[in-house]
């Protein structure tokens, strides 16, 4: 039997398999569109689809149109951007470390961004402008990235992960110190609220601020796909296949610092999305690192958008913060993951 004959024979089956990823991406984009529309309709004041369309496309400054255009639309856009960022960076870091528990916070970057923002709040600099906290957050995430990189260089992936854990602990300790020394009740309350993560009352200003960093970071992360695939075979074989491991680490780290730093700076600390999203899509994409990047991004966007809508609709007393919500839902997932690993482990 010729290779061509074999190939044709299996082409149908292969085609079916490729379709799974396409189907997955298609389904998720569809869900995303539905949720996005729901995000514009839902809230304490439910709008009709007519009012939403009017708000989006007409130029009259009517009440519903203001709510949609200036409050709900930037919020939904931000949810999609931040969710996608967390999803794709989680996928890249899980691929880089070959560890299913990796997430953007692993390398210390989210706590660096959080500490940067906390510093801005602590010194009362956020009064100057809306851009101060995000700017400090980005500086913080970059500082964390450089520190992790410097600590872990030359030691392979394990050293990188350990360095990230060390930087993470350091960031958390510094945040606790800031809380401890907070100059007034307001600052402490504020820091804690910020650490719980939220998308409430965000405006186009924040979208415009975060978007360039998110875009730049996500582009860098997208380019790591091929190298991550090769890394499935271990570092020696990947190197033999022409993968520059150092460059891969730098790209992944820099991409995460830009994207996750930018995202965390405008929303506060939101966890678990980066952990959960890749796991949800992996079985449908053949477990291959490069093929889960885009689905992870869309899954992350879907999850965060859904969580945000949920926090708006749950009305038991004070607002449930986004980060609290994702943590509450993410932890059962963690349990399930452990149980599953226990069953499949030798």
């Amino acid at each position, binding site marked *: 039997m010729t*290779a*061509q004959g*074999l*190939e044709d024979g*299996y082409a149908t*089956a*292969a085609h079916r*398999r*490729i379709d799974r990823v396409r189907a997955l991406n298609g389904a998720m984009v569809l869900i995303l569109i539905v949720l996005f529309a729901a995000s514009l309709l839902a809230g304490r004041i439910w709008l009709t689809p007519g009012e939403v369309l009017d708000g989006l496309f007409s130029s009259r400054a009517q009440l519903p149109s203001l709510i949609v255009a200036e409050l709900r639309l930037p919020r939904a856009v931000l949810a999609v951007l931040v969710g996608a960022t967390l999803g794709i960076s989680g996928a890249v870091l899980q691929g880089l470390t*070959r560890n299913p528990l990796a997430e953007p916070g692993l390398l210390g970057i989210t706590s660096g961004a959080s500490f940067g923002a906390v510093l801005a709040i602590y010194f009362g600099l956020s009064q100057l402008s809306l851009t101060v906290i995000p700017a400090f957050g980005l500086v913080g995430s970059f500082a964390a990235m450089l520190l992790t990189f410097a600590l872990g260089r030359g030691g392979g992936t394990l050293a990188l992960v350990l360095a990230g854990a060390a930087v993470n602990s350091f960031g958390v300790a510094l945040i606790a110190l800031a809380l401890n020394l907070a100059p007034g009740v307001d600052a402490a309350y504020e820091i804690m609220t910020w650490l719980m993560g939220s998308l409430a009352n965000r405006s186009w200003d924040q979208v415009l601020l975060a978007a360039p960093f998110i875009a730049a970071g996500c582009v860098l992360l*997208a*380019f790591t*796909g*091929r190298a991550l*695939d*090769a*890394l*499935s*075979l*271990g570092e*020696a*074989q990947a*190197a*033999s*296949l*022409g*993968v*520059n491991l150092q460059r891969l680490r730098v790209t992944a780290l820099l991409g995460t610092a830009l994207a996750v730093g930018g995202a965390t700076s405008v929303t506060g600390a939101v966890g678990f999305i980066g952990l959960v999203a890749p796991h949800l899509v992996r079985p449908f994409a*053949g*477990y*291959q*690192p490069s093929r889960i990047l885009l689905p992870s991004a869309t899954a992350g966007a879907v999850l965060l958008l859904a969580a945000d809508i949920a926090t708006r609709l749950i009305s038991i007393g004070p607002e449930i913060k986004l980060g609290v919500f994702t943590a509450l839902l993410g932890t059962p997932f963690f349990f399930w993951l452990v149980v599953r690993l226990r069953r499949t482990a030798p």
Partner: protein
Amino acid sequence: MTELVAANIGVSRGGRAILSDVSLRAGGGEFIAVIGPNGAGKSTLLSALAGLLPPSSGAIRLDGRRITSFGTSELARRRAYLPQDPRCEWPISVERLVGLGLTPVLPAFGGFSRAQQTRITQVLSDCDLLAQRYQSATTLSGGEFARAMLARALVGDPQILIVDEPMEGLDPRHRIEAASRLRTLSSEGKLVIASVHDLTLAMRYATRIVALYHGRVAADGPALETMNPDLLRRIFEVDAEIAGTEVRAYVDYLAPLPSRHAPDERISP
């Protein structure tokens, strides 16, 4: 015909010399079995020859050019390397695993071209893996996994194949198959270098044997001639006979020799 030349290379790590003054000239059509006791430096030599470990002294040349002057992608297209105890971290399908061998020629995004897809199928067929094509690589048996890794190494059609302990952990049938495959590849014009513990198979299937001892070349010559009891006594510290003749020759181990070295002179692996 490709040519790989190592000229007086030495590799040190942590102040200790792992390889000293190793010279080797290898070309396409050869199947070189590298033998030696644990800790002799076989893995290090293979890594160095693959261009993954720069030697502390001396130089390695591939087709006349220093191996360090090759770009990693270019080198990846010319030679394939399989380390000891290879693993696959994610449960991807065998087809995709084999496809990873094409990484050096794939662009940043996108799938395989039709020609590449055909090539993958061809290699799967050559290595008897068509039935396992869509199976998850982590569920393969030892023999199947070894074949899958070999297929991954061959899919890019490299001129040089460097394999560290390809027969480790395989049952007798799969060992013989692996050795036979490597010999076939060399007879097709490729240069195959493998480190081997099974001396009988090395003797029967390799064209040439290079013996390492304490980081130096103890013997280098045609397989059947080089394998002799004196060599075995010297580097393996065993009393052994080469029994049988020609293709039925085998190494018959008799007894270990009393240890020549004081314990603290032993080189740890």
